[in-house]
């Protein structure tokens, strides 16, 4: 389940009003989420949740659900 906070950060960074982000949603399915923008989204998530990801953690993310889990681990949820 994608938290409203994470969804908001991603959609704001992508300049989208709404998009149905599910656990299984992958970056190429979301308008604007290309490889060039990926790094900006990750930095925006880090800033918003006040966490830092390691490069290899980012590399292992397959979908938005994985990103949510990583945020949860980092924020101690």
């Amino acid at each position, binding site marked *: 389940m994608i938290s409203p906070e994470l969804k908001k950060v991603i959609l704001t960074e992508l300049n989208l009003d709404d998009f149905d982000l599910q656990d299984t949603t992958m970056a190429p399915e979301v308008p604007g989420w*290309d490889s*060039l923008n990926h*790094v*900006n989204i990750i930095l925006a998530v880090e800033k918003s949740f006040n966490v830092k990801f*390691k*490069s*290899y953690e980012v590399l292992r993310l397959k979908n938005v659900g994985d990103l949510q889990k990583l945020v949860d681990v980092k924020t101690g949820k």
Partner: protein
Amino acid sequence: MNTIHLDDSKTLWERWQRNAERNPDREAIVHWVAGEEPFRWSYKNLIGTAKKFSVRIKEAGIKKGDVCAIVMHHNPLFYPLYMGISRAGALPAVLAYPNPRLHPDKFRQGLEGMAQRSGLDYILTEKELDPVIRPLIEKPGSTIKSVFFPLEWDYNSDTDPEADAEIEKISLSVRETEPILLQHSSGTTGLQKPVVLSHRAILNHVLNLGGGYKLTEADKIVSWLPLYHDFGLIACFQIPLACGITTIQINPFEWVLAPILLLEAITKEKATLTCLPNFAYNVLAEKIHDDELSQINLESLRLLVNAAEPVRHDSHKKFIDKFEKYGLNPLSLAVMYGMAEVTLGLTVTDPGKPITELVVDRNELSRGVMKLADKDSVARVCVSSGKPLNGCEARIVDENRKDLADGLVGEVAVKSVSMFDGYRNYPEKTAEVVENGWYYSGDYGFKYNNEFFIIGRKKDLIIVAGKNIYPEDIEDVINQVEGVIPGRVISFGEEDEKMGTEQIAVIAETKSESEKEKNDLRMAILKAGMAMDINIHKVYLVPPRWLIKSSAGKPSRKANKERILSREDKQVWSR
């Protein structure tokens, strides 16, 4: 330090084989995968496996002169396969593996366009693409003869010595003037321009660009660049292999997700040279946390070559500011200018020397005159692309292709001993751009103190992160979006200073009036771009008859881009 040993080989295969005989145990390719031990090809093993692939190639029915498109992920077997195709006298053409967002129809359409233009004979790919590619092969009138899955082939067993001898004979029959490979310019719908290069062009380029880089036997070239791009294929694959030195190949898909991989590879392999498009300097400087860099040491790097998109002073400055404390020598930064039509490089700055930068008056420059800035000027920093390599010449010409004096802005015309033999099956396009042995590049620049400065483009090509994109491709697709007035769309590249590259913008006329309608239309435009693996960064919606027409009656990209970027029109909706 030992300079590179370049023998009198007439073909690349001959050169590769001789390199393997001279230094069999030297590492040829270090295949880098994040978090794993790299796969290391020695020259001897690489050539041995390439020979086995060449036998399989012949058994598959592929003949000398056939064009073989390779569509594969980052895989250690790619390299011997590529070389095996070459040994069999066929022409490898590396194509991008389709991104998941690319619609299968669009991928097939792109392949079909290439097949019709370039005469692709075979596609060598991975099994998972079979359902996507098969319909294309089976389509009546298809020029593509078959699709093969070389990763499934047996390349471990010994091959029949007779078959091997036959291929050796074919290989020896290849002359230096015959083609070695085919490269495609960007584009997705048949606008690609296939560039065919001969063995001689590449071997000359190895000599001249290798000389420009001052390559020695001690050099190791590390790259994350995709091998379907000429910067990756020529600078980071063909040149090191032809010089008998080591290349470290990083997965491009992994690099964009974890840019630190390049720095790790430089540190661990003590790499000396790397090649980067401009945006990568921004990404490396700004998108990696300092606490991840504690183990990074860039002291081994003696040359970083910036090319493939406009070079920006700010990007170099950010990069030096960030990495000097990690051992980066600021004098290791260099710039190259070139194009696939001359194999790759045309000019390069002097390795180990400061790059010339001119602070010029922006307004005078837009009027076609380079004037050094004074206190009243709106300044622009122009970064030198250096001087022509040995065997290359460049001139700045006016619209009638007459020479312009130093300091005047005009089109860059180039000539090289590594010139292409024309676009394959495209004589009318070749005739447009080549005259009396000069290639008219469509790039704008000026010459000053024998150095060339590239400042813009005559053609409307968009370059996003080093990737060339034709606006026509985007406009064709957006024209079909419901709500857009057909034929009333233009696309252009909009500067993104933060990322150090251009981003794609679209201006479309529409009758939509409400905010909701416009937002829905923007989303439809973004999705249409996604289906062709194009990320549209900004959408400008304008009312009917807003777009300025050119004298040919079509909306003018240049005039409308200028109008939209003046940001003065309240009729424009943008997001």
